[in-house]
Each structure stands twice: as C-alpha cells, then as structure tokens.
C-alpha cells in the first residue's frame, strides 16, 4: 500500500500543477491554493493525495443539492448499519444466519436502491434516463423498497 503510494503519484504530481488551474474556478474554496504552490516539490505526494480529497469534498459541499445530501446521509447511515451487522456477525457468530442475511441484505438492498434513486435524480445523468423522470424514479424506489422489505421480513424467521 505504502509502496504504491510512493510510486504512482510521481507522474501525477507533476501534472497536478497543470491540471489545477481549470479546477480553480469550479472550487472557489481557498483551501487548495496553498497546497498547489508546493505541489512541485519532491515530498508533495502526500499533499497531492490530500488535495484530491479536498477537491472532492469541496465539490461535494458546493455542487450537491440539499435533497441529494439528504439521500447521501441516508446512504451513509445504511453503510454504518450494514458494517455494524457485519462486525457483529464476525465477532459474535452468525448463528441465526437467516436473520443476519435478511438484515444485511436489507441494508445492502436499500443502499443500492437509494444509490439508484440518487443517480436517477441527479441533473447530470438526465441524458442517460430519457424515460425516467424524478417522480417516476421515486415511485419506483417506493415499490422496490416495499418488495425488498417483504422478502426480508419473510426471510427473517
């Protein structure tokens, strides 16, 4: 892991300086600016990695509509719940395997459905879904969730 981090960024580090200026107007936050100035120096690989994350976070915070953020919060919650279940299963054993499976697949399924809803309602993806309006997407989402939870309850024993 550490090795790959040392090896791979070196071509990218040089390129970052070139790539950054067009990035600048889209992310007006002041944070990346000082990072970029030291980008050319040799020990910059770590900061470069930071910069990617910072760019990402900035983009997310500035460009995402409030509703989508709500969806994302729900998705994060599902990830946490799923991870908790998985950790429990690993630590305490999977004895009621039915229960674990249905609980876990409920979170996974709901996560996937929510992700699909998020994709379908994002403005940028509109060209991909000519036949799915946001309202239709939400209706689909509700129907699918109902079916998903029916199966889960049926399977939980």
């Amino acid at each position, binding site marked *: 892991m550490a090795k790959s981090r040392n090896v791979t960024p070196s071509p990218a580090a040089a390129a970052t300086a070139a790539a950054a200026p067009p990035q600048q107007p889209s992310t007006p936050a002041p944070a990346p600016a000082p990072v970029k100035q030291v980008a050319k120096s040799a020990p910059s690989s770590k900061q470069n990695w930071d910069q990617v994350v910072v760019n990402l976070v900035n983009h997310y915070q500035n460009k995402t509509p409030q509703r989508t953020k709500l969806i994302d919060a729900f998705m994060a919650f599902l990830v946490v719940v799923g991870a908790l279940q998985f950790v429990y299963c690993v630590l305490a054993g999977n004895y009621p395997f039915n229960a674990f499976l249905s609980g876990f*697949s409920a979170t*996974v399924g709901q996560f996937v459905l929510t992700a699909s809803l998020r994709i379908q309602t994002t403005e940028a993806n509109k060209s*991909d879904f000519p036949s799915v309006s946001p309202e239709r997407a939400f209706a*689909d989402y509700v*129907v699918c969730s109902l079916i998903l939870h029916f199966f889960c309850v*049926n399977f939980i024993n």
Partner: protein
Amino acid sequence: MSADTLQVLASAGKGESTRTILRFIILSLIAGAAIASRLFSVIRKCPLSAGSQLLSWQSRPSRRGQLSGLLRLSAFWAALLTAASFQVSRALFTNVGSPSLSQSCARAERQSRMVADNPLVDPWFNFRATKYLVANGFYKFWDWFDDRTWHPLGRVTGGTLYPGLMVTSGAIYHALRALTIPVDIRNICVLLAPAFSGLTAFAAYLLTNEMTPSPSAGLLAAIFMGIAPGYISRSVAGSYDNEAIAIFLLVFTFFLWIRALKQGSMLWGVLCALFYGYMVASWGGYAFITCLLPLHAFVLICMGRYSTRLYVAYTTWYALGTLASMQIPFVGFLPVKTSEHMPALGIFGFLQLLAFLDYVRSAIPSRQFQTFLWLFAGGTFGLGLAALVVATSAGFIAPWSGRFYSLWDTGYAKIHIPIIASVSEHQPTAWPAFFFDLNMLIWLFPAGVYLCFQNLADEHVFIVVYALFGSYFAGVMVRLMLTLTPVVCVAAAISASSLLDTYLNVKSPNAEEHPADDNTDGKKSGKTGLKSTSKPVVGIYGWLSKGTVAGAMTVYLLLFVMHCTWVTSNAYSSPSVVLASRMPDGSQHIIDDYREAYQWLRQNTKEDAKIMSWWDYGYQIGGMADRPTLVDNNTWNNTHIATVGKAMSSREEVSYPIMRQHEVDYVLVVFGGLLGYSGDDINKFLWMVRIAEGIWPDEVKEREFFTPRGEYRVDGEATETMKNSLMYKMSYYNYNSLFPPGQAQDRVRQSRLPEVGPSLSTIEEAFTSENWIIRIYKVKDLDNFGRDHASAAAFDRGLKKKKAAKKRGPRQLRVD
C-alpha cells in the same frame, strides 16, 4: 356490412394502431399454433392418463393433425406477411386452405412412430406432488415428509424440490375453481406445458423486439420458438416437468433484463428480479441466468460500456433477485455460499466501485483522478483477493460442486460421479441432434449473431454473449439444448427478417423518385454537415433477384415447418409409458406393459409393499402403482442407490440380506430381450455396477462383468459374476421356456442364450407382463425349517425329481 368493415380495415391498414392490433392478433395465432402443435400426444394417448378421461380425446387423429397443421401454417404465413402488408396477408390466409400442404402434414403425422428409449418420468413425481398440494394445502405441502420413497429414509420432499411448477398449477386450479369452472387437476397438469409454450412464443416476440426495429423479426422469433423441436421436446402435452414453465421464465427474465438495462429503470429491474425468483422456484437451471447476466455486465464493462443504467439495472436485479431466490427452502443459503453464485456477487461489488469511481471522476479533474484510481483500484483488488482466499480456505465458500465441474470437463463426471453420468440427458450432445432439434435455424443462427455485431448496442452484446455461452453448454449436455433454443430462435429471426425486409421491399424507387430520396437524405446530411455520412440508396430492385431469394426463403421456411411437424409427431409425441410398434401387416400395435405391471402391483400387493427397482422407475412406481420405493429419480442419496446397485449386481446370497434389511417385498426389473426394447435394465446394468463399485470397491468390480476379452456378453460366454448376479438371473429366469430347446435368443443384444437358464432360490417370480418388459419377483420369507434358501430350493427341486422318478419306477410295497 362485412364489405364495409373490410373497407374500414383496409383503409386503416396503414395506421399504426391497426398494425398493432393486427400484430397482436397474429401473435395470439402463433401462440395458439404453438399450443396446438404440442397436443399431438394428447390426441393419441396421454402419459398422465392412467385412468383416464383424456383417452376420450383420441378421436380421429388425422383430422386433428390437419387442424393443428393448418393452424401452424396459417400462423407461419401470417408472420411472413405482416412484414409485407395487410392486403397480401388477407390473400394468403385464404391460400392456407390449399389441401395439398395440410394433407402432407397429416400424412407425416400418420407415419410410424419410433419407440421412445428414454421414458420421461419426472412428470409422475410432479403430478403426485401437485395432487398432494391441491389436497392438503400450501403449508402442508411446504412441510411434506414423504415416507413412501427412499424406503427406510424417507424424503423431506417439501424442502428438496422446486415448488414453482406445482404451485403454478395449484394456483390455476384454485383460480378456475373460484370462477366456478370445475376442472380436474390432471387436466391442468397435462395442458400446462403447451399453455406455457404459447407464453414462451410471446416472450420471444418481446425479447426480439428489443433487439431490432424490424417489426417482422419478433413475429418470426415467436414462430420459431413455437415450433422449434428443441423446445417442443420438453413441452408437449403431458410432459409435466419443470422445464415446461422454466423456459418461458428464462426468456421472459431475459426480456425484462434487457428492458431494465435499456431504460435504466428500477421498476423493470425489480420485475426482472421477481421473475428470476419465480425461475429459481421452478428449475435448477436458474444458475444459467445467475451466470449469464453477470457475464453480460462484465463484458459490457470490459468494452467500456459502463453506464449508470447498467448500475441501476444490475444492482436492483441482484439485490432483490438474490433475496428472492433465498426464499426457496431448497436453495436456501446457496446464493451466498457456493461458487456458482460468486460471479454475480463479484460483479455486484465491482459495479459499486465503478459507480463510486464514476462519481469521483465527475467531481475532480482527470489527472488527479488517475492518482485516485490507481490507489483505489490497487487497494480494493488486494483486499478482495485476500478476502476471497481467506473465505475459501476457511470454508465459508463451498468449492464448486460436481455437476458444475462436469460442465467444464466432460470426462469429469464419468470418472468421479457415475450417478450424474448415468443420466442420458447429461451426455454430450451428438452433432445430428443440433440439426434434428433446430433444423434450418442452426445455419441462420450465426448470421443473426453477425447482424448483432453490425450495430452493437448493449442488448446486442447480450445476444452475442448468450449465443456463445449457450452454444458451449448445449454441446456439453443434451438437456442444455433447451437453454440454447431461445437465443437460436431470436438470432435466426433477426437474420431471416433482415433478409425478408431487404428482398420483400415492394417499393422500388424509380428514376423519377430518386431525386426525392436524395432530398430526404440531403436534409439529414445537412444536419450533420458531412456528405460521406449520408447513406447512398442501396437495395435490391430487380424482380428476378427478389423473387428468387424470397422464393427460396419461403421454401426453406416451409421445409422447416414440415420438419418440425415430422419431428413432433414422430419423436416427441409418443406417450412415454405406452410404446407403439408396427405389425408386419402395417397395423399399429400398442405395447402397454408398463401400465399393465403397475396396475398389477396396485391391485395385488399390500398397500405398503416395498418395491425395489433401479431408480429410473421410482417415480413411475410411486405415481402409477402407489407403492413405496427404495430409490427414485430424485437421486439425492448416492449411497442408497449404490446399495440397490449392489443388491442387483451381487450373488443371491449377498443380495438377500440386503433386501431383508431394507424390507423389500418385490423386485422389479425391466427386460427388453423378447421384444427388442433397448432401454432395459441389462443395458443399464453397467451403471449399477459402477455406482455400487464407487461405494464398495472390494465387493463389486466392474472388470468381472466383462469377459477376458473385454466384451460385455450375456450369452454362454458371459462371466460367472455376470451369470450369478441377481439382475442377470431375474432377467433371464424361465426365458428358455419360451423357445425351443437351445434356441433362446436375446433380441436386444443379438445373442443366443445358454441352454440352461438361471435358477433362483431366494426370490420367486410373481408377475411377468405380456411382452416380458416388466418382470416382478417376490422376495421369499425366511425358510420355515431354518434352512438357507439355496438348500431349500435345491431340496424342492430334488423332491420334484424324486417324485417324477417315483412315478416312472415300478410301485413297490414296503415290506416291514
């Protein structure tokens, strides 16, 4: 009045809505024809008609044959002509009445039938299970423990079957009852497969319509699907088997998948998952879908065709479909435990990563994204590989099961699992079978696949992937020909329709019209601004070439219909338990030994008399004779089958204790030597030996059944082991008495039998059917005087001889 309506119809014929209606009518005609073509067997004699009202359907087969031939022909013509226009189609509907064609159909129908070597037996079990379901309700069925099979063990039937078929017919039964239509469950069971074949034709239409804009392709696919012998083989009336509904579900699931992928809609994805769940509930072949859809997704990703639509469709299908499949008790946790299901899970995880990366790419500039990608991909790949290795070595994921290995290495099953290899459907496909089952479709098929490459969209990739996958598996196992048939029909329909569309184009542009065409093209090219992108007007306009190709195609299609009629009536319509043969004078002779013997069992034995036979006949005995069996066609316990194999292939002294321990009352063998019926037990004997040898390699040895020269013989040259085996003795017991001394002959193996036939001491002959196909022996009780059976039998024989000698000798008074 009628002229008015005709005029209205004709004038509206160009309208879009009328075309839709017309297409619908033709489609239902095709479905009707598909159903009708499967009723040949009902028209004659139905396999499920042990009792039977259905026999009364057997009125004037030639007329029926004509009828269904007519139906099929009309549907065929109809599909051809939708491609052209309404006017022509009306003209040709009258053409259908031409008597020569329909008569030839009927003649083919009346020809002699082959003897079915491979009686279908699963329907008997399914029928029995359905009766149980209807009689006892769903919950009892779910918990059904069957103590009348696998004798000492019993079988948890409710948890070890695919309930889809029974539940479907049970639901239809109750629905009809609710509509106050009194109908016997047997009739539903008999007619379910043809009814679903109509639906399959419809599903093939829908699937093909997703592939190509040509309106005729779907109808052609429906026709092909309706009459392709490869599918008819499993959907004739009375073949009440899982495949009957599974093929419809297979095709329909694929249609829903394509629809979901094209629209990127969750709703279609969830419908796909629901039908996938139904498929899992119906047939073990669901693994085909489980592997094909991830493969399609994977190929799309590798081609750089990842899209958010793919993400939505696939993840919705997988998350819900897996959950749905786990609802079936027989499947249970398999989807998360076995390796067959792992590709689907892997692609699911992979798509999550891709979706995340896709999002990140849209968020940050591309150079930074590369950095991110390398780290991310390397990290996840390492983690995933480690997790897989750990999980497999720790035993969380079961290794690949044997049936699966046999798909990759055709020799695998023969070496390791004789029970799988012994089933004739699991043998590799012979080359002629492809032509026999698909006829001209087999050469239209590659052309269709090629056409899919022409404009390669996501759905065309699916056809290509399916074609490769299906062809491979159809080559491995005979029964998987069934999964290949749909894609062959779709691809063949695409190629046939593109041919017909090209050559049946009535409008030929004249020299005057040409500029007009150029103008319309000019508009388009004006938009793009590139002259070279505008297509030149290319087409075939000569009447001669048009006529030649269209005529040849018509002839081929007609030949195809004839071939299908011939195959259906000759190979797939004979009821499997009733054999038909031909007398020297040409009259038909029905050989009804199976039913005769089962009826005998039903009437002359105790209700709980245990019958030992080879497992092939287990379901039939359970269904028709209603007696408990030791082993049956659900081959879940190899050891138990091997026990029966050992009892059959050992000497009497060894077999008798085995039979006593299993409380066997009767032993049933199938013997074809008198009639020349090749599917008998002596021909299957080596499988019994092999399976028994797998468990007891020291006691049963396959080598000892062959002569020193390596021949499998039953005549005087046969080995001692062979001659002393219970199976041999039971088959040839008393057989000599039918012939003049020294003339006894086995007509299957074409060999002359030794002069002295085998003698039996521990069992006695109880019943032999008219043509000696079925022989039933009763297992003797322990001897009253405590002797062993061999000496008791010897004593009996000795006594007889003595008596005879006494009669001959002069009578002497005892002087004492």
